């Protein structure tokens, strides 16, 4: 394997990453291979889980995440702020998941797919969930894409509204609005369980 190295040295940095608070040792930034490998080890599972919540399909999610890491690797020398690596990775996963959902849009006759017909893996996965969780996940999957993304980032990734806005490239007001409507829709699907 050929490793591309650029001239110059950069100090080691650390950053705190999403909800598991795992400190990530960012290697010298001129060593994309080892730095991305470290992130891969520490964040791959979390990123695949994020994608699964959005596209409901493990195999596709793995592909999305692999593409995200490849993009991060390509981008590595240009990243101005190395601590933004995880945010960049998350954005790649969101974009990749969005593309997957766009590709599925020709399930046109069923724009809000029945919970049992999304994917084989998704259906099987949900069967292993408790009934109360299944209802929530089914309601989540029926949300418009933007609302689903906001709900997942707020409630699972535990991002602040400002961080969600940055990750999705939308305004803070849009985050609030989508979170409100998404939450309302899920509550309504659960029978108004507030």
């Amino acid at each position, binding site marked *: 394997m050929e490793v591309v190295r650029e001239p110059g040295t950069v100090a080691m940095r650390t950053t705190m990453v999403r909800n598991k608070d795992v400190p990530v040792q960012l290697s010298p930034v001129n060593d994309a291979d080892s730095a991305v490998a470290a992130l891969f080890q520490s964040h791959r599972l979390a990123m695949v889980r994020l994608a699964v919540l959005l596209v409901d399909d493990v195999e596709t999610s793995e592909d999305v995440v*692999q593409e995200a890491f490849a993009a991060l690797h390509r981008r590595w020398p240009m990243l101005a702020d190395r601590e933004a690596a995880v945010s960049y990775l998350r954005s790649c996963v969101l974009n990749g998941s969005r593309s997957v959902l766009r590709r599925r849009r020709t399930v046109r006759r069923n724009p809000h797919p029945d919970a049992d*017909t999304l994917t084989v893996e998704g259906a099987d996965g949900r069967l292993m969930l408790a009934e109360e969780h299944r209802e929530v996940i089914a309601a989540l999957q029926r949300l418009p894409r933007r609302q689903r993304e906001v709900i997942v980032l707020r409630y699972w990734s535990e991002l602040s509204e400002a961080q969600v806005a940055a990750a999705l490239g939308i305004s803070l007001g849009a985050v609030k609005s989508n979170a409100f409507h998404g939450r309302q829709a899920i509550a309504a699907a659960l029978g108004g369980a507030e």
Partner: protein
Amino acid sequence: MNTIDDRITAALRARAELLTEAELSPAAPPAGRWAQPSRGRWTAPLLAAAIVGVAAVATVTAVQMSRSDHAHPAIRPTVSVHPSPSGVAPTPSASNPAPSQSATQPAPSQSPSQTANTSQSATPPPSSVTPPFVMGYEPLWPFGSYTEAEQWRTKAGGSQPWHLDAAQTALNFTRSYLGFTELDQVAEPRMDEQGAHVGVGYRDPNGQLRIAAVLHLIRYGDSKDSPWEVVGSDDTTLSLEKPAYGSRVSSPMTIGGHITGVDENIVVSVLASQTDRSTVAQIPAGGDRSAWTTGPVSFAQRGTLTLVASTGGHLQQVERFAIHGVHT
């Protein structure tokens, strides 16, 4: 947090944590030069491409000037699109022959690139075409890629003009690609912002038109003379829903959907090309929007796959069908 917030958080966590590290497919992090934005390594290929482009333009100019000396007409013939009248099979004509009825017409699924190769050499190379077009669907037939479609559009010189006719493309797909030769009727295409929706079918013994499927086609490109591409079907009483449209699949996979009907026998096939096809299951089914599923079926095809579910046996072998696009 109140109840609903707690429920959302708990459900998301439960769903996410169903997936563990051990269940992830083995994968290595990206590494090495292939992933780097090495601007330098593109310099030579870009320079070479530029030289080839300049040479091609010069050749085109020279050939066209040479031809103009002999007062030849335009290379590209005029092509008129004549949607087939509702319920009537398209009539072969000199300008728009039905490939299945024409011995001289190349097989549609194999023809675009071949035709392009044998057409006028004075057309610009495909490298001069920037491909900004985003398909958004699985390209099922007749073109396997945007490049192929553009090659036909820019190089075919008007051969196989049925590519510009959504109804004819739908009928050729049904008869030539799927092999449902009993289906010889095509309805007037319904156009909307998503493309064309074309009913294909047959006439029953009473002469009544029976629609076997409504195929969805889009233009493969942004140009008005971009060819039509079959991307799926609008399913009603027979549907294909698993795996999800556009998803990545691997063998074995489970194929399923819903059906409304009595005493049906669903034949499920996987096609990767006109010759690379296999029937993977036959399932007795029936009822009112009853779920049907194949169970795990193995397949060997690779690339973009067309999943086909068909049923019939009452009036003719194939009376209804649905198609679906996935890829490996």
